[in-house]
């Protein structure tokens, strides 16, 4: 019944969509890892911080990429959930509840994720976010901590 009304995408459509979105997701996921891991873990202070994210996401181009990643990943994954529902849940009533839940999850998490990206704002002018410092391994001598404070102040 939900199928006739178009709330339950058919197997054929999902089959095609999984392949097209899967192809796009490979590229987006590689970029995601390059941006959240390699641009920070390997080259900068080692911890992904608000500033690292802001440096990239202050540009509308990167926001657009992030939004398409969000929408494609959610659509791809939740259509997979739809397929699983069609395979395992045969009772009409249960199926309706399950399909409805998937739609609600899609909308809630789609809106939530988009709001996060679209409402990002840099730190208040005149302040910088808290810096971070590595605490395991070799203990940091006091002078070095001093130096870190200095850098923060110079950066302002």
């Amino acid at each position, binding site marked *: 019944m939900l199928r006739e009304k178009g709330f339950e995408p058919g197997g054929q459509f999902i089959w095609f969509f999984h392949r097209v979105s899967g192809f796009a997701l490979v590229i987006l996921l590689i970029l995601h890892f390059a941006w959240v891991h390699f641009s920070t873990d390997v080259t900068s202070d080692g911890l992904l911080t608000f500033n690292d994210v802001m440096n990239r996401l202050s540009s509308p181009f990167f926001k657009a990429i992030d939004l398409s990643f969000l929408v494609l990943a959610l659509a791809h994954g*939740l259509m997979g959930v739809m397929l699983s529902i069609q395979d395992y849940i045969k009772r009409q009533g249960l199926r309706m509840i399950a399909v409805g839940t998937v739609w609600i999850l899609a909308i809630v998490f789609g809106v939530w994720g988009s709001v*996060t990206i679209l409402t990002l704002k840099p730190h208040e002018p005149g302040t*910088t*976010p808290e810096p*971070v410092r590595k605490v395991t391994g070799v203990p940091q001598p006091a002078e070095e901590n001093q130096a*870190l404070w200095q850098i923060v102040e110079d950066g302002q």
Partner: protein
Amino acid sequence: MRYRIRTGALAFILHRATGLALVLYLFVHIFSVSRLANPASFNEEMALYSSALFKFVELGLLGVVVAHVLNGARIIAVDFWGASRKQATVFYVAVGVGTLVVLYGAIHLLPAVFDGISSGQLLSPSYEVIHGGGH
């Protein structure tokens, strides 16, 4: 007649299980990314993810992602680029690439995990957010 493990069925279940696990991860991920609204709390959260336990979980996540992505890429190659006559080759390439990627991740993640186990500090961040440092 002999019984054989049906590798096709196994691959299907693996792909479905990893895909559904990634959906759950994505929900949690959208929640944790939403903390970007408060920079200090975002940095605290990222510092927590630098602890041994989370690095271990991250390695598991990498395994799940790599398994799903490479099997997915294999399916696409077989369906769209007529790679079906070279199925075996495609399969071994996927397994080889996947192993290398997970090994690379393990080299980066496991030292912190072992540190945490030997010091008993599974949840202490290896980074500290310096409060009040930025004014």
